[in-house]
């Protein structure tokens, strides 16, 4: 029973990983790529690690998987936000069909 639930979580996680990487190749703009890939890959990897936690129970490897989930949920949005901010500040243009740029509006209002 535990094996089946763990396998279901692992398969769902791998599906999300694959879709996130398709988004990384397919999207037209760097900001769209960042948004599509980071969220999907974080959720997929957390699914895989949760399947590992169910498979091993609360042994040494299972607790390490739980620690890895918490660490990943803390650090992946931070690194994605830092990359997006650095990209916008280094002057990369948005896609020409994008309609909204709130960060540029804020910088114009401050200066």
């Amino acid at each position, binding site marked *: 029973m535990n094996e089946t639930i*763990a396998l279901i979580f*692992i*398969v769902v*996680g*791998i599906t999300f*990983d*694959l879709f*996130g*990487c*398709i988004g*990384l*190749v*397919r999207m037209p703009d*760097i900001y769209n*790529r*960042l948004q599509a*890939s*980071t969220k999907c*890959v*974080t959720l*997929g*990897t957390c699914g*895989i*690690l949760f*399947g*590992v936690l169910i*498979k*091993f129970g609360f042994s*040494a*490897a299972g607790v*390490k*998987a739980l*620690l*890895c989930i918490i*660490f*990943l949920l803390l*650090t*992946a949005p*931070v*690194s*994605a936000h*830092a*990359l997006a*901010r*650095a*990209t916008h*500040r*280094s002057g*990369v243009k948005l896609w020409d069909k994008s309609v909204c740029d709130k960060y540029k509006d804020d910088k114009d209002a401050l200066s």
Partner: protein
Amino acid sequence: MKFFRWLLGSVFLAGTIIFIFSYLKVGPQAKLMLYLLVSFLLSLFRVLKGPTPADRAIATDIFGILVIGFCAILAVYTGRDWYMDVAIAWGLQSFIGTLALAKFIEGKNFDE
């Protein structure tokens, strides 16, 4: 031309998925790992092709997160615990490396 590129990509992707699912004579665990390796190849394609340096930084970040999942699957299907140690260490190194790359792209020094 754009439609042709779209058709080529979708045919390649669907062909790879169907080939792994039905024609390859390996076990189901190896099939799961091969699907994950396809996503590794897609992120490496973005590292090779990306127009700006920030694209390459994002693709290496995604690559680091994928390696954590791959180490977890290896820990399940080989039954060895120390792959989880590798996953935690890789996650730490990837996070710090991504922050350093973000500072470098922004064009400032490390101490401001």
